């Protein structure tokens, strides 16, 4: 049994310590936002936040996560009360097929938590490891800039989900 803290809750997980975090999130906890893309840590579709940093959950075994806080997209906001990053992606219509978007949002979220006012170059550099095959990159970049603005305004205070720290 491994104890895993996800979105603020402790979970007792009955899995081998070398099980990738992604499998536990999707198969055990039914948190399906993080996607299986390449399984090699090369596409970013599986990105979640661990202790404030963007982590590739498909190549992160459970045993590395002892005592750490995992945040998935579900932990940022809900359909009724989306987090700023989610609102921004919807308002910019940044998703086409949407497969990469959860990972994009999580990496962008980690960036904005660390650096609330990133330059375009910093956004591009940070998101470089996440691939989008539909080609909505320009909308994704706009969405991240919009999220930075949203987080910087008073509107954000109404979000009670703890999505923004």
């Amino acid at each position: 049994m491994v104890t895993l803290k996800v979105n603020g809750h402790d979970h007792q997980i009955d899995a081998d310590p070398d099980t990738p975090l992604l499998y536990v999130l999707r198969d055990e906890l039914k948190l399906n936002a993080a996607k299986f893309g390449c399984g090699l840590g090369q596409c970013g579709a599986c990105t979640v936040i661990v202790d404030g940093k963007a982590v590739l959950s498909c190549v992160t075994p459970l045993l590395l996560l002892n005592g750490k806080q995992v945040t998935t997209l579900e932990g940022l906001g809900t359909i009724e009360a989306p987090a700023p990053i989610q609102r921004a992606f919807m308002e910019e219509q940044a998703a086409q097929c949407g497969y990469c978007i959860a990972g994009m949002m999580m990496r962008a979220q980690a960036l904005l938590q660390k650096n609330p006012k990133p330059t375009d170059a910093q956004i591009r550099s940070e998101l470089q490891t996440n691939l989008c095959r539909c080609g909505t990159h320009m909308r994704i970049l706009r969405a991240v800039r919009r999220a930075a603005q949203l987080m910087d305004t008073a509107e954000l205070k109404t979000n009670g989900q703890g999505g923004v720290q």
Partner: protein
Amino acid sequence: MSKPRIIAGAAIAAVIGGVIAAFAVVWRPAIEAIEPPAPQSFEPALVKRGRDLAAIGNCSDCHTAGDGKSFAGGLAVPTPFGTIYSSNITPDPDSGIGRWSEAAFRRAMRSGVDRAGHHLYPTFPYDHFTNVTDEDDRALYAFLMTRPAIRAPARANNLAFPLDQRFVVAGWKLLFLKGETYKPDSTQSADWNRGAYLVEGLAHCGACHTPRNALGAEKAAASFSGGDVDNWHAYAINAGSLSPLPWTTDALFHYLRQGWDADHGVARGPMAEVVSNLSSVPEGDVHAIALYMTSIFGPPTRDRLSQASATRAEIKSPAVQPAHADIPGGSIYQAACATCHESDRPLPYSGINLRLSTALSAPDPRNAINIILSGIRPVAGERSPIMPPFANSMTDDQISVLLNYLRGRFSTQPAWTGVEQTIRDARHSETVFLQTQPEPNNAPAGSMQRDKPW
């Protein structure tokens, strides 16, 4: 004449003599500026040869900033004495070398003096370039003068007094610039001599692979015994090599040409850029370099050979390992590393069996840490070696126990010391690196070479 007068006279003479001597050491005349020559005034064949030579010299690596234009300079080169910025060697008339004559270019290569007569810092490895022939300097000049001119004024170096005074470099040259040119060894083959000429000259391998003294000059007595570059360790490439399997000419050729070798793994860090350049030059030159370097490595000792065959046997039929979960670091290795590093997929697309890793046998863990933290990024649009980064998913403690386990299991060398501090330093420099380099260029060799059958 009274005695005090004689003494005073002698003292004055000595001072004047000293000033003249110092002037002779320091002062270099300007070489007259020229009108930038038209690109079409250079023979295409000469330009092509210059292009290959520039690749062998790895010129673009230092003379191009991470996000800058080729050869326009501006790359920050960290040294123990401060940061030096590389210069613009495109033919821009004002900020580049557009007004340099071939004679001025040759003087810079030979004696580290720019056209205006200023001494250049020895981060520009003219201590090696003294070996380059006039003919090759001419080709390099032709190549550089036909590049697009980029306006990019030099950035001011960040050096403390008195090192920010360029005349100080003249003293350094007195001590360390021998100014010898390469003399062929008639007892060796033409190929060997070609390799020696390139390695000791333009390719300046020793600039990274030879340790430096307190004044930043290569220690002549410790040639190729391992040095430091950009927070990486450049391995010993002589008889002191710690690679688990000895290097052969074939392995060296394959590694330098294709960026990886089945017995030694994938080139990364600063070496990735070197092999990337070497993948595009005439094959014969790379072979000559491999041949010469084999003689620098020297024939492996009997001990080394028997160790190598034990290693090969161990890889073929691994001994049963104790349960990994009981060993600190073993469980991390099994969960995070073994799926690639013990897979049946062949190199370069899979991980090397870590028994063959020189990084784990190296004198310090820097290279292993760098690669665990940053992984190997794929080359855009190409099939290339990859490794995911673990900087965000492993804590310093986890990396530390993992490294100690890897060292104990896969290397015959004694345990590393100061692993934790090295990890903290690497994280710091990694952060700096990632902030200044939008696209870390650490994937080796062009795909054209990478996929060639071995």
